């Protein structure tokens, strides 16, 4: 656990990455929920030899309890990604890769897109899991 006073989200992410010991890291927002099979599906893909995996996602309408706004994403295309930030959550990747790319506090607000753009410039093998593995609970 790590605490800071008025830290940027990027700095907080970097400190959390320093705590991590796993071969892979998954980013889970504090207002999001994992599908019960999310890590199993990611672990399966990463063991196949991929370095990065991202899944579809949806949202929870808290008043009705219904899942809404499913986001069915396209397969990985670095060219398309330059103009459309569709990777989002759930994102899992090799810890060493995540740590070497890191989050730039100067880019808070677009930190996720900036991070994934830099990942896409490496030779990482990136794959899409076409299942809703993460639900955004509160936005």
């Amino acid at each position: 656990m790590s605490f800071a006073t008025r830290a940027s989200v990027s700095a907080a992410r970097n400190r959390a990455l320093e705590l991590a010991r796993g071969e892979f890291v998954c980013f889970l927002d504090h207002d999001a929920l994992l599908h019960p099979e999310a890590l199993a599906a990611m672990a399966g893909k990463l063991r196949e030899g991929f370095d990065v995996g991202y899944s579809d996602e949806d949202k929870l309408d808290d008043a009705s309890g219904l899942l809404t706004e499913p986001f069915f994403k396209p397969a990985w295309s670095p060219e398309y990604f330059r103009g459309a930030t569709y990777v989002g959550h759930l994102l899992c990747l090799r810890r060493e890769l995540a740590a070497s790319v890191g989050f730039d506090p100067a880019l808070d607000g677009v930190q996720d897109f900036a991070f994934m753009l830099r990942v896409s410039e490496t030779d990482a093998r990136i794959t899409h899991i076409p299942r809703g593995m993460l639900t955004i609970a509160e936005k």
Partner: protein
Amino acid sequence: MRANEVVSVLRPLIVHHAGRVKSKLPLISIVTCTFNTRPRWLAEAAASVLNQTFADWEWCLSDAGSDNPEVGEMLQSLGKRMTRLR
């Protein structure tokens, strides 16, 4: 939900997961940053982590300077109970 209820709500899931952990080091680290996180959503997020069919994970938490002191207290009390929380 109140901050001091989070751990008691999660206790059965924490005990169940602890019994499923076999390895010394996790394969996957889940990284979550908190900021003025409401107790209910922290509990829901934690439950979704603890309910994973894949058990070999750790949960790394980093607070981005919450104004609400309850957030830190929730994380500290969770950390005392969850072996795979960092």
